[in-house]
């Protein structure tokens, strides 16, 4: 209940921070793409709109997750509002979880509205069967999972570092998260056993963002753009990975936050 109250408050705060303004940019992008692309491309109009729409959902969502996530705890500390809150019978882990869920819910609202915008743009162009729209949903779901994971990463850094450094760390981890498969390849090709161990350890340790962009060796956004189905079991495994990784990160964030001295 207390977690829900903090989450609700975080969501309200995000709305007050004009976070949904990005939707206007997204809407403009979608409208412009539906009119301009016909002039620029040769065929593939709907594919380009889907690629652009899903990539925008992912990129905008990631930027929001990073730049709002890094301030979630830090801002409360800076404004000293956290003292008033923690003076009440609220556990520190509840504070962290509430903050996290509040931002994840903000991202969910964003993703839902952007998905509606994408669907409207496609409907305006016409000629797309119903199953085409439905095939977009698994990709959007996986994008949302990646956003939830990035938010958790940002929250961990927010619990002990300044926003600037947190943004830098989270952004780098987001980039590295796309290259995790290379770490695995390095571990398999290197002849040095310690190096192989380090690469393997990093492969498991770092957030594997590519789990949500590649499923069964297929690019998730591309599959959606060709209206191809994604394997449900693979999506299930990606969900389990996200839940487990976020749980670890949130525990870590709660532990760091609990260990901090606010006197």
């Amino acid at each position, binding site marked *: 209940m207390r977690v829900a109250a903090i989450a609700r408050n975080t969501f309200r705060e995000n709305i007050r921070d004009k976070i949904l303004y990005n939707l206007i940019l997204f809407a403009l992008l979608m409208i412009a793409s539906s009119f301009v692309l016909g002039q620029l*491309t*040769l065929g*593939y109009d709907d594919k380009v709109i*889907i690629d652009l729409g899903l990539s925008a959902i992912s990129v905008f969502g990631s930027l929001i997750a990073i730049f709002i996530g890094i301030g979630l705890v830090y801002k409360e500390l800076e404004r000293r509002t956290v003292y008033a809150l923690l003076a009440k019978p609220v556990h520190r882990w509840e504070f962290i979880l509430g903050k996290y869920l509040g931002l994840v819910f903000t991202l969910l609202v964003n993703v839902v509205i952007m998905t509606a915008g994408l669907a409207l743009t496609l409907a305006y162009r016409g000629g797309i069967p119903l199953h085409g729209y439905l095939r977009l949903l698994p990709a959007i779901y996986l994008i949302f999972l990646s956003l939830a994971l990035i938010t958790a990463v940002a929250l961990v850094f927010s619990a002990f570092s300044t926003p600037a450094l947190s943004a830098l760390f989270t952004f780098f981890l987001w980039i590295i998260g796309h290259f995790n498969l290379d770490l695995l390849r390095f571990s398999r090709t290197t002849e040095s056993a310690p190096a192989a161990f380090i690469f393997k350890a990093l492969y498991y340790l770092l957030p594997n963002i590519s789990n949500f962009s590649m499923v069964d060796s297929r690019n998730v956004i591309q599959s959606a753009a060709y209206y191809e189905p994604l394997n449900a079991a693979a999506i299930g495994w990606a969900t389990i990975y996200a839940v487990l990784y976020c749980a670890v990160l949130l525990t870590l964030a709660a532990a760091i936050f609990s260990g901090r001295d606010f006197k």
Partner: protein
Amino acid sequence: MSGFRSFLQAQRRRLPVAGVLACAFLLKPVQDRLEARLDRASADPDILYFASPSIVKALALGYDGLVADVYWMRAIQYYGRREEAARRLIRYKNLPALLDIVTTLDPRMADVYRAGSVFLGEPEPLGAGEPLEAIRLLDKGIARLPGDWRLGFDKGFAYYLYLKDRGRAGQAWLDASRVPGAPPWMEGLAARALSEGGEVEMARSLWQRQLEEATRQDIRENARNHLHSIQADEDIWTLEFFVEKYAALYGARPRRLDDLVSAGLIRFVPADPSGVPYDYDPDSGWFSLNPKTGVRYIKMTYDYREEFRERLRRLYDAVKTQTTKTSKR
């Protein structure tokens, strides 16, 4: 002085707004001036910063589809801006790399292989004049999309038209005809190419097939332009032939083309495929397309003028002999 001051005082809120507006309006002419000073020849350095598909793929961070779309649009603009291309040292130097990047990032864009092979294979100035690159691109497409017979069809087309290699064209069509879903006429096409002769008729039937079956407007338009160009070439060669016959019979070229009809050499004066009469110069005996023509003429890569004239001569002689025999009876 005090009047001016009081004016400034009264307008102190409006003046900054007016100033900002004036600056904003001035931006355009200033930018135009700066643009006019640019050396247009050096404005396009024709540099591809990332030519390696694997590097671009790595930098795409999983947004492969979107980056492929962007590179595809870039390839189209790169190819489509003919004036810019004409100013480059090598017209389409980066086109193979651009298409390679697109098809590495998204190997399923079948139209990129198809249209890209035309961009690469067509001789300059229409295309890059790189038929081997066109075939390499199509081979990549056939490897990635083995179920798409159209890529094999296009490969045969590239061999036939750009490299004039009928044997390999026939083999490519034969391979394509074995792909499930390939139309039944493909095998016949392969057979015709593999057999000797019939070069122009083959080209005509290929363009006709594309005109009838292509779903893309630009490919149909290209096929129509080729068909019209073949027709215009043959019309002009026919008219030239009869002008020469007229000159042999009457000692001078006809002043008007209607004279050929009056002399009984032809039944009517043909117009070009867009319905506009051909231009005729009685002094030189030369024909050309009228500037008002709707035909977008493309010079054929094969020359069969003499072969065509020989056929006409035989036909003319056969008709003449037949007419003489009939009149004797």
